[in-house]
């Protein structure tokens, strides 16, 4: 065999070996940590949930949940958890997991709490990959930006004003990170519109039920007064 061929083969083998070993190490590490990672994520979600619950809730919110597939409303084709908070048998609020698919760097996963009257109890960012120092200000741990949604509803402001100030809306933009801010504002608005359109069905479904919604929200700038 020519020396050139032998060298090329040797190089290819080295590379294949390094890739295989590296892949193996990563797979092993992932298997080793998968359970802990999932547990940490559940913890974080539970903390976010507890912070958003309205007063006077007496049911097990974690158990009283449905899996909702509503791509046009919740920003993802995957089933999302909607938890129902009840007190004395009456609905006190819905805790909806939603995705803002149009962030600057991948999906932003949100938890939106809405009370029975359609007013936002609060919004929390569960997961995101926005740029540190700019877009990560959407995260409640980095800035207070996310708290501006609490107490707002579809009538306050009107859907056409659910946008950043620069575009004639009522919400703070983030300097240097308008894309992240816009994505979260849109996702919260869509979630509110989803509850307005389908809230009754969400509240009435049996725990553990799977719901599918294939309709879509009205466009944001639909000329509403």
């Amino acid at each position, binding site marked *: 065999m020519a020396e050139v061929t032998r060298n090329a083969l040797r190089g290819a083998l080295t590379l294949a070996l390094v890739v295989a070993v590296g892949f193996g190490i990563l797979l092993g590490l992932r298997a080793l940590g998968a359970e802990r990672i999932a547990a940490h994520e559940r913890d974080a979600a539970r903390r976010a949930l507890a912070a958003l619950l309205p007063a006077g809730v007496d049911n097990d919110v974690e158990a009283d949940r449905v899996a909702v597939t509503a791509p046009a409303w919740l920003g993802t084709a995957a089933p999302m958890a909607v938890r129902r908070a009840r007190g004395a048998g009456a609905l006190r609020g819905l805790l909806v997991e939603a995705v803002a698919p149009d962030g600057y760097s991948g999906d932003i996963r949100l938890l939106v709490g809405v009370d029975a009257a359609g007013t936002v109890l609060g919004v929390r960012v569960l997961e995101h990959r926005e740029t540190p*120092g700019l877009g990560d200000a959407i995260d409640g741990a980095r800035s207070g930006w996310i708290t501006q949604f609490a107490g707002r509803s579809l009538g306050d402001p009107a859907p056409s004003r659910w946008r950043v100030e620069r575009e004639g809306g009522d919400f703070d933009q983030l300097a240097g990170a308008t894309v992240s801010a816009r994505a979260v504002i849109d996702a919260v608005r869509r979630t509110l519109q989803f509850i307005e359109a389908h809230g009754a069905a969400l509240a009435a479904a049996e725990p553990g039920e799977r719901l599918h919604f294939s309709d879509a929200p009205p466009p944001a700038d639909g000329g509403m007064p």
Partner: protein
Amino acid sequence: MTTPPDARGILEHGLWSGNPALVQLLGLCPLLAVSGTLVSALGLGLATVLALTCTNAAVAALRRATGRDVRIPVFITVIACVVTAIELAMRAFLPALHAGLGLFIPLIVTNCALLARAEAFASRHDPARAALDGFAVGLGFLLVLLTLGGLREAVGHGTVFAGAGALLGLPQLEWTLLPGYRGFLLASLPVGAFFLLALLVAARQRWQARRAAASARSRRAESSGETEWPQ
């Protein structure tokens, strides 16, 4: 082969004469994007020190097995594996640290300083020296990040260490320099980071030029002294 550099030389090179940000101008993408505040600068800097030390050691350990032709793809694979492993391990075992540094780890892969050190140093030296080199270069990067982050945060937002409570659990570090300061957007944006980095590079060059001139003068004085004295 020349004699391997000693620890002092490696540290001096990483921190000053071969500083990745001020001299080699490597890793500008994360440097400019993430130096908006001191806290994020510290986060990225620490993640870089950790990753660079580990990748350099791993590359050095594999240096004899790596053929010349495939070394670059091998280095890239090793770097990607080590950085991913760091993120996985941090997520599983140090969730609090991951909550603070997690966002920065994927950015490390965009830092070409890692590949540069693998090729220029780690592939030619033993793992201990390579790890020290990674640490030194990472530390040099961290110091420039902190300088940029501190200046940009103070000018852009009028604060020092804002968000330290969330990332480090040290809210007492947070300062507001001027209450009611409206901020200066240019400093917060990457454009401002470019200007500031240029100023830092220029300041370093000037200092370097002055020192060179001073040592040339003293050499001239010495040599002229030597030629004059015996006469």
